[in-house]
């Protein structure tokens, strides 16, 4: 199990950030890293516990299409969304995402995305001790050596 957390504070009201995250028309405008498009017609989002999530991501450079799917686990608008990601077709990226929307004030929202990627049970114990950052330090050390 690998845990990664991201946090951003946006100059936007909480409802607006929630809508951007949950409205397929808006998801199509920002989801995915740069150079990747998520076509509107590929997006299905059934926003209730057990609801299915489906979308394709298209690599702009090659046109390669990567289908994605998942399941909504918890919905508490406009503050919390939890979903399971089925991962990439090669089997990586499977995990659970917890997205929280916190109103700092009426026009400012802090978004936190916590990803817990699934690996097998043997990894769990050590991963919970936060080896992730140490792994990166080790890699930096190796790169510098």
């Amino acid at each position, binding site marked *: 199990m*690998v845990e990664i957390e991201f946090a951003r504070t946006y100059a936007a009201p909480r409802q607006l*950030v929630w809508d951007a995250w949950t409205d397929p028309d808006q998801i199509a405008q920002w989801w995915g890293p*740069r150079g990747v498009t998520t076509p509107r017609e590929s997006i299905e989002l059934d926003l209730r516990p057990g609801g299915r999530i489906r979308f394709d991501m298209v690599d702009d450079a090659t046109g390669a299409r990567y289908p994605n799917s998942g399941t909504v686990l918890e919905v508490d608008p406009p503050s919390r969304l939890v979903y399971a990601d089925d991962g990439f077709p090669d089997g*990586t990226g499977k995990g659970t995402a917890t997205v929280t929307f916190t109103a700092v004030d009426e026009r400012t929202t802090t978004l936190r995305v916590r990803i817990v990627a699934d690996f097998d049970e043997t990894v769990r114990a050590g991963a919970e001790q936060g080896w992730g950052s140490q*792994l990166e330090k080790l890699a930096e050390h*190796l790169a510098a050596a």
Partner: protein
Amino acid sequence: MAPLETPDRLSVTFGALADPTRRAILARLAESDASVNELAALVPAISLQAVSKHLQVLERAGLVTRGRVSRQRPAHLRAEPIAEATAWLAHYRRFYEESLDRLGEHLSRLQGS
């Protein structure tokens, strides 16, 4: 979005890295090859058998190779699986960092700022 290493292989790598003693061994080997005796000096009161056991786990994960020539069989670090594991993490991180940047830009556009 090129497919990376399979999760099974990554699980073995992450599993091997999940132990602090094994990470200490790897960090030491990043400096130079070392014998079991030298590695045992890293951790207070650790037995040579315990070090050998950790080395076996690291060997199975492909993170370490052992010399065949010298009687001390010095351990040598193989960095490739670590590079794959960090590439996987970097891939994941980039995905979200860039998505969240784009979300910020989208929210700015929505508000006409």
